[in-house]
């Protein structure tokens, strides 16, 4: 578990939150509401049929679904997969220009304008949740009116990925600071978490033991995806009971 550290230089010794997520697979139905919510929040463009056929769609969050067994004893295992915001992220050390790194709050950051497009991070991500902008993003008029002004539209040639909706984290923190208070547990919800009808996803500060996400992450059912690779992901999956 990542420990909270203090923010250097603020002098207030405010604890730096350690963002993380827990996903209860017993609740998750695989309805994909999160997928569209994410595209809508984060200005993720659709690739279109031709590009989709080439495997160039961008889904910052996706539902991995695998069939197990054969009829009639068949079942499906599904799992929402987003950037796991690894503490020991394999994508980070390989970037030659430091366009990706982990910040003090544990977010695995991608700085679009710093990216020169080696795509090394993308191939080194074991979850393959990094996406490349093959073409300049386009929205047929007037679809572009929907774009979220809080999120940069990424130019062609850079790698992008789930940010844990950093714009929402920023806004919540700014609002809290303006009102002279701390950000409360559950106050920040990434778009996927907010939309999830089954309330399978919980986002929050892992370093605060009383937060919901920390309690879920410490539950016996909690596992992490490809944990054996030593990436120390910050997304905890509560495995299905059966």
């Amino acid at each position: 578990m990542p420990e909270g550290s203090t923010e250097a230089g603020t002098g207030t010794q405010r604890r730096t939150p350690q963002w993380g997520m827990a996903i209860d697979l017993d609740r998750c139905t695989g309805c994909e509401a999160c997928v569209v919510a994410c595209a809508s929040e984060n200005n993720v463009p659709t690739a279109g049929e031709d590009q989709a056929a080439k495997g160039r769609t961008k889904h910052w969050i996706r539902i991995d679904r695998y069939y197990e067994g054969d009829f009639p004893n068949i079942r499906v295992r599904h799992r929402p997969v987003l950037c796991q915001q690894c503490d020991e992220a394999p994508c980070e050390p390989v970037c030659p220009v430091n366009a990706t790194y982990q910040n003090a709050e544990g977010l695995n950051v991608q700085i679009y304008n710093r990216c020169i497009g080696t795509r090394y991070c993308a191939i080194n991500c074991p979850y393959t949740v990094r996406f490349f902008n093959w073409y300049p993003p386009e929205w047929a008029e007037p679809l572009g009116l929907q774009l979220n002004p809080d999120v940069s539209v990424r130019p062609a040639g850079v790698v992008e990925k789930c940010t844990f909706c950093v714009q929402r984290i920023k806004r919540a923190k700014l609002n809290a600071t303006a009102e002279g208070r701390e950000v409360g547990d559950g106050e920040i919800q990434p778009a996927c978490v907010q939309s999830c009808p089954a309330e399978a996803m919980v986002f929050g500060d892992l370093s605060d033991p009383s937060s919901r996400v920390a309690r879920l992450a410490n539950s016996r059912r909690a596992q992490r995806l490809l944990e054996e690779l030593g990436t120390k992901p910050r997304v905890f999956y509560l495995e299905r009971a059966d």
Partner: protein
Amino acid sequence: MDRRNFFRVVGTASGGAITGACGRKSEEIIPLLVPEEGITPGVESWHPAVCGECAAGCGILARVMASEREIEVDGERVRQRIATVKKLEGNPNDPTSGGRLCARGHAGLQALYGPDRLRGPMRRAGPRGAGRFEAVSWESAMQEAAEALDSAVAEDAGRVVFLSRPRADLRAANIAKFLSALGAPPACAVGVRDFAAEVQGAERAYGWRGIPAYAIRDATLVLSIGADFLSGWVSPVLYTRQFGHMRRGRPGVRGRLIHAESRFSLTAWNADRWLPVWPGGELALALGLGRALVDLGAGASPTRAVEAARAAFAEVDLDEASAACGMSAGTIREVATELAAASAPVVVAGASIVREHSADAVAAASALNVLLGRVGVAGGVMPPPTVLADLVEARPSSNRWRERLANANLVIIDGANPAYSSPSCREALANAGTVISLSSFVDDTSAYADVVLPDHDPLEREAVALPSASLVESVACSARFVAALHDSRPADSVLADLAASAGKPFEPLDAQGALTRLHATLGAGNGAGSSEGFVESALEQGCWQGRPASGGTTGVIGLGAFEVADSMVPAVFQAYESLQFGTGGGANRPWLQELPDPTSSAMWGLPLEIDPVTASELAIENGDIVRARSDHGSLEAPAYVNPAAIPGVISMAMGQGHSQYGRYASGRGANPMSLLGDMRDRRTGATAMGPVRVHLERLDKGKGLIQFSRQDRDVPPHRV
């Protein structure tokens, strides 16, 4: 100079400038119109709205911020600053959505900003169905429509057909007012989602009118017969929320879900046990379960209702039932035992895939709740809400729409697309007297319209809607909060204008009026305060929420006789409502087109789902182009070998195969309904979605299928 400064000195010259903004001289400067007051760039505001994507009636929140667009004013290109909806979320106050939203709900934004949305009224410029239109002014379009209405009413108001959707909302109330002012018969709900079977089943089993709600959140065992309540059906958000709570919301209790359906739907994914019922075998399964429960001594405290149910089930032969549904008698007994032993079981009775015997199947399945004593109790089945009777009454039903359409002198269409969901009605549409569409898009049906009077998007108009299922009395409502993007007009006022010009004026109901009426019916005893305060608070909250729907088995049980199901025949086809497109309306939203289909992972197209046994017999592999032929029609689509399909059952999701529906939907894929002909539920007349016998033929090896994930299994075959 310290070290760090040394480094900086060495290379300062290479710094890239962030700004370059003062050099905009070279750019063409497009003037900006003086905006309306109250639009501040960068400031967000949240407004309640009502989701218009399906009939569930979720209360949502819209995030509104300023944007700029370019328009033409008096021949000059100018920029205009407008308030635009940036994001939709569920409305946390709303008891249906509870602050949550499904994929289709999110994509409602792309209907609002759809590039193919009509910019203004249109007049047909080609033959019917060709989809060629020319833009006209509102005056001339209204005049044309009014003349058609005049002559049709003068001829025979009884032959005016209004095709709509089965929603209990402001629009339905106004349509009802419009039609009654004209003296025309009530509107018809078309499409495959009018829940006629559910309504009739509830009436027969519980004596309720409307769609019952299931409080699965408090159940310990949920048996769903034919209701794919997690991916569509009545109210996916409400039921998914409840499902989450049922599973992990109660300390120490994990509710169990058994799902009986003829395909491996999303609900089956999430079920602890899937009962693969042969298509059309839902009735037999419900009857068999009833018989087994009777044998187990269920319904020990007899009321009249329980007696009726016992009597109906006692006649069933378990082996016959087992043979008709494809489940062994042992399995049926096992499930019945589990139901009888559970502390809080509930049977969700539905017809996600409507059959010829769906009304019977739903009634029989509902009767299981009667037998188990789970009607109107916590964790059981709850009665439909009864507030705002105007809206409830105005909710259109199927109402023999095909027969009436065949004989129509005027067809008005709002929110329905029968040319897609029942392709066999196209001929009737082509031959109808005059066709007026209120659609925002030229879809399959609007292509037959003589004049299209585009409606506002649901997000651009005020709304009052009753949720199609709710555990409490509630209403979702909203006031207008953004200006219309295009030159559209709300259909309510268009209808009022048309009626007025036909000399049959009526007063359209608005949100204010409906809520005032709601306040009045609630009476003073509800603590609702003044009428104005009530309305204002409801519009601010985006909803009104009352007490839990009052329940109890009040009605007289009239299960009646059940028709016996056909025997099982191999290679049958069924269509189903897709998670992403519903019954087809979502197909013009690029987000949804690029959303992998849960079953096949297909994007930008939907496959024919073939079971592995049939597929290997015909040497069909994923992506091969396959032709399916039934007695009613044929289609060609890429194949997906669905590992979970029942051998001999071919399924296909609805959504693709639009002849007209904008750039993202039209001409893409195949329409599964074209294989079904005029198949209906025998009791309610609702459009049935199978089974029909099909013949499959592989046409082409190929890459016809675009999949997000081409691997169906976590463990590739060679690893086994």
